[in-house]
């Protein structure tokens, strides 16, 4: 199987709800979102973010993913700059009813995985009729 070659994906500025007072860059992370019978899974590329600086919230069915990134260590004069570093922010409206208590998230190799379990509709209960 021949593998496709990775291309540079342009970083897009995130849509902020208001203007920032600080002049900081926010990018919208690239995401994959998919759905199984049980859950909705969101995968986001957020290189440079550590778990402590990650903020996740689900409010009024709006999922907000926010990651603050440490400023790159100043290690001399910048002689080549092909990418910019900034924080990450992206919001989604989740249509399904999500079980807020069981949301799980993990961060590995700069990739965030959020699992949003759906609330299962009540199973119709079978009532067995005993023959007396």
């Amino acid at each position, binding site marked *: 199987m021949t593998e496709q070659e*990775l291309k540079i994906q342009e970083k897009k500025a995130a849509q902020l709800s208001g203007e920032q007072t600080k002049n900081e860059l926010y990018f919208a992370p690239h995401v*994959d979102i998919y759905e199984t019978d049980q859950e909705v899974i969101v*995968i986001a*590329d957020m*290189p*440079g973010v550590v778990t402590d600086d990650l903020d996740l919230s689900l409010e009024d069915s709006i999922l907000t993913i926010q990651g603050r990134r440490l400023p790159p260590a100043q290690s001399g004069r910048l002689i*080549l700059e092909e990418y*910019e570093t900034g924080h990450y922010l992206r919001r989604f409206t989740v249509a399904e009813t999500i079980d807020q208590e069981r949301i799980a998230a993990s961060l590995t190799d700069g990739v965030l995985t959020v699992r949003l379990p759906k609330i299962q509709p009540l199973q119709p209960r079978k009532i067995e009729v005993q023959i007396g």
Partner: protein
Amino acid sequence: MTFVRFTDRPPFRNPWAEFERIRQGLDELSRTYIERGKGQGLANVYPALNMYEATDRLVITAELPGVKVDNLDLSLEGDTLTLQGKRDRRQSESGISYHRREIEAGSFSRSIALPVKVDPEQVDARLANGILTITLFKASAATPRQIKVNAE
């Protein structure tokens, strides 16, 4: 009404002054454009790199989300640094439906020429939280030497 005194005018008009003014304006425009668009579109081979130079070392950083250490290869040959690796496609489970697919999987290979001679024995590379940091120490011939000035 502003009153322009005759003496405020230059003694004779330079016919090229207007061109000069336009040129300066264009220079300024392209400068701000470059500053704004910096980092975008400069590189066309993955991954995009940032390079820092200190007196004794070069630091190269790249964003490689989802790339495992085992799938990353670095090699240094003379002044050429080569980065190779791949990002695995996730196991696609059965019975899933995609809403969005923006993350790509695949392999990459990039070589860059280093601006200075480096010591091949002293290379440090680490991958943490999806950020690769390569520290290369300059060869002793390329490090600036302090020259002491003696007073007589």
